[in-house]
């Protein structure tokens, strides 16, 4: 038998109603797909963003805020960790690198983050996309998405630009300029929008001691060995900040070691441990003595469980929406079936088997559900992409929302349930007495 010509003819004949039903199903499915795909994308990308940092050290306060500030560069007023902790960590066994993170200035919308060369290379495990790490206090390295090029010279403004004074005046730190000497590769995190400068520069700009005795400048004329190696490997016509070094600050050494007494506080320190065992030990140690230390991944897990609750609610809503839509579809099918009772009886009278009539009804319902589910899958993907773009634009967090197994399983489950439910009107038509239907009573 071949019910398809009749099925397609009937679907075409009632295309407006069929389209409405398919769109209704598609919307319900797309909601579920988008929520599921987006939530996973958020989880994956935020975990990836936290990945380079084993431990984040801060003062005891909101641990979540500490992680959000360091991993996502979300501005917040954090209490400062005494400078001696930073210096102490430089020589603590098990530490691969410990880099400060100091905030304050902005260039346009790009936060200027004070740190050390170790953060740029993640302790030597990451190479620069362009140029080299900073070696002097006037040098800066930009994130992948910062709209500047090597050799650019800029002068930062203080504070968050979104909180700028109504007269449009920005507080320029007159006299302190940076030259861009390097660019990091894309990380898919808010760090892509950041400008990283030596932490000494941030201290200097804010009239703080720089961690190095003023007399030590000559003693530490050479930067860290690692940085100098890179320096020698660089091309001879690379951008230079030499002309900026002519002021009295130009000779200030950068990077560890610092003098404990001369080192200002920093809001956060990120630490990479040599091993997992070291990480646990370091965290325990850093939780003593007035500071706190967290595994960002762990804090994010807590966040996810909160997000997960919201996700679960949305998932339940989307499943409920799908169930309601399917119920509405079945109701519509029953209404149509009542009207088409005579037609189906005619099929039987003309010699169609009961299974033919069942197939005609089942196929029609199933095609509507399947079309809706497939359109919904596409719409859901599209929606997840759109949300990703918005989140990316707002936070700099790259989110790759993909349709993966959970979404496919969801759609398959819907199709399966749809297939079973579509059998109900099919069976009802199957069992209906022909003679009664034919009379149209």
């Amino acid at each position, binding site marked *: 038998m071949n019910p398809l*010509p*009749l099925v397609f*003819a009937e679907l*075409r004949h009632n295309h407006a109603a069929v389209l409405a039903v398919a769109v209704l199903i598609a919307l319900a499915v797309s909601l579920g797909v988008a929520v599921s795909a987006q939530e996973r994308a958020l989880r994956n990308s935020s975990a990836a963003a936290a990945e380079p940092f084993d431990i984040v050290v801060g003062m005891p306060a909101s641990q979540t805020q500490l992680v959000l500030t360091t991993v996502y560069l979300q501005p917040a007023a954090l209490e400062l960790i005494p400078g001696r902790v930073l210096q102490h960590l430089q020589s603590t066994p098990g530490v691969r690198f410990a880099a400060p993170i100091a905030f304050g200035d902005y260039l346009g919308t790009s936060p200027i983050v004070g740190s050390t060369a170790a953060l740029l290379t993640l302790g030597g495990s990451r190479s620069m996309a362009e140029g080299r790490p900073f070696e002097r206090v006037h040098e800066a390295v930009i994130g992948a998405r910062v709209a500047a090029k090597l050799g650019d010279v800029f002068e930062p403004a203080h504070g968050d630009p979104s909180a700028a004074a109504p007269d449009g005046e920005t507080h320029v730190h007159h006299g302190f300029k940076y030259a861009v000497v390097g660019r990091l590769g894309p990380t898919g995190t808010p760090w892509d929008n950041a400008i990283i400068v030596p932490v000494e520069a941030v201290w200097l700009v804010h009239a703080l001691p720089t961690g190095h005795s003023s007399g030590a400048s000559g003693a530490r004329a050479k930067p860290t060995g690692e940085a100098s190696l890179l320096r020698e490997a660089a091309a001879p016509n690379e951008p230079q900040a030499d002309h900026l070094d002519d002021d009295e600050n130009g000779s200030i050494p950068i990077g560890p070691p610092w003098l404990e007494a001369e080192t200002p506080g920093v809001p956060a320190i990120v630490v990479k441990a040599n091993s997992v065992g070291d990480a646990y030990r370091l965290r325990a140690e850093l939780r003593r003595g007035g500071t706190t230390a967290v595994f960002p991944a762990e804090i994010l897990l807590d966040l996810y469980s909160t997000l997960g609750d919201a996700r679960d609610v949305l998932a339940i809503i989307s499943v409920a929406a799908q169930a309601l839509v399917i119920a509405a579809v079945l109701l519509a099918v029953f209404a149509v079936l009542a009207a088409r009772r005579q037609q189906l009886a005619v099929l039987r009278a*003309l010699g*169609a088997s*009961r299974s033919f009539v069942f197939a005609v009804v089942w196929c029609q319902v199933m095609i509507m559900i399947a079309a809706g589910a497939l359109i919904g899958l596409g719409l859901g993907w599209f929606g997840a992409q759109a949300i990703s773009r918005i989140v990316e634009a707002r936070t700099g967090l790259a989110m790759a929302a993909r349709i993966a197994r959970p979404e496919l399983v969801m759609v398959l489950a819907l199709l399966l349930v749809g297939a079973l439910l579509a059998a109900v009107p099919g069976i009802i038509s199957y069992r209906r007495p022909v003679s009664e239907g034919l009379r149209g009573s």
Partner: protein
Amino acid sequence: MAKAARGARLVAENIVVAYPLPTGDELTALEIERLEILSGSHTAVCGPSGSGKTTLLHVLCGIEAPRSGQVCWDAVDLFALGEAARDRWRRHAVGLVFQQFHLFPSLSPLENVLLPARFSAFRVDAAVARRARALLDLVEVRVVGNTARLSRGEMQRVALARALLFAPPILLADEPTASLDAEAAARVAGLMFSACRETGASLLLVTHDAALAARCPQVMHLAAGRLSSAAPEPLSVAS
């Protein structure tokens, strides 16, 4: 045009169709001791509305099982067959024409005629497709087009073509001309009789159209579910 099919001989005996009433009583819709139709004959059953004409037709083509009795077309004892076998038999052995045509407006005239072929085969046989076109040609309806826009006469001609697709030995028609104007009715009736003559099919039509009935050699009358071969007095064929 098509292979000449022999008609079939009907013997129906002791048919009782009864429905339970809400009051608990029963309504006897049909009570027929014996009805015999010779192979290839043309028979009309006349009777007023509610006399059981449609019920009789449904019993004779096996879509309504009587409470008791036997319907045999040639060697086929209809209600001894299973439902699936009865469907199969009806598909090929019976052509049905209804008062309200019962075409599918979503299908083209050609697809309407081919519909019975879809019940059994995935692909329509080329010979069957040719026959469908030839039948539409015979009844003078274009194969393509919007079935819903056809005139009533054209619709009934398409329905007749559909009934004749498999050149069935039996053609059953339920008030085939009742919803047509005189001209269209005459045309449909003419096509129906000539088709049956050509294939040798047995024709049984129920009607209250005396003129149509008069074209059949055998006319029976049905009143309150009972058959008589003569017109009951004084209800009659007087008109």
